[in-house]
């Protein structure tokens, strides 16, 4: 019985986005740590575009190369390959010491990332709860 089938694309997507948001937090932390370092260029992780195209690829994802392999369902193959790009933000607003980190912007981005991470965890929990309820047959 293919147990993997009860978790759809959405659970896969939520798990991957948790992964990516954790990496984004690491980059934001390093931007904040280097807010006073001369000559430092801030960087960020961009992954929304990659997630979108991975989802659109959907059905054409991975296919079984050998008849006895269990094919990966739906978009999971291409979703697993999403890694996110580390993009340099540039030194447009750098001070005289060559440091380009904007403290306020980084704090804002960190808050947004944290809220989205927590929201994703909650939605994932809700999905699992719904599955458990269906299995149990009652509340």
């Amino acid at each position, binding site marked *: 019985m293919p147990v993997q089938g009860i978790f759809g694309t959405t659970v896969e*997507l939520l798990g991957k986005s948790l992964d990516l948001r954790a990496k984004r937090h690491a980059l934001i932390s390093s931007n904040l740590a280097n807010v006073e370092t001369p000559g430092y260029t801030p960087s960020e992780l961009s992954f929304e575009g990659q997630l979108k195209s991975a989802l659109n690829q959907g059905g054409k994802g991975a296919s079984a190369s050998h008849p006895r392999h269990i094919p990966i369902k739906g978009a999971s193959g291409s979703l697993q390959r999403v890694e996110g790009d580390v993009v340099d933000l540039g030194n447009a607003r750098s001070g005289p010491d060559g440091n380009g980190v904007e403290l306020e912007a980084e704090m804002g981005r960190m808050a947004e990332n944290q809220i989205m991470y927590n*929201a994703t965890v909650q*939605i994932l929990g809700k999905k699992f709860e*719904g599955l458990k*309820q269906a299995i149990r047959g009652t509340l």
Partner: protein
Amino acid sequence: MQISAIGNISGLTQSLPIQGAQAAPQSPAVGFGNLLQDMVGKVSELQNNADQSIQSLATGQGKGLHEVMLAVEKASISFQMLTQVRNKAVEAYQEIMRMPV
């Protein structure tokens, strides 16, 4: 005691607007079956809506967190209601089967 009182189960289908006009002339079993089927369809649709909004949240589009939360809650609550309706229906059926003829 009138055996035709069993026909009053159709009142359940009339309280929900889905099957309103057609509930009365049909026999209770078929009416309730259609009701359940409709409910399952609606719940499935709500679940798909929720999935769509989650995907749009993850890719950074869509109206935002509140849209996702509402869609997910609606899907979850309607699923719970469907489960409870099914459980009650099964319970009622078993109750009836237990009755000595």
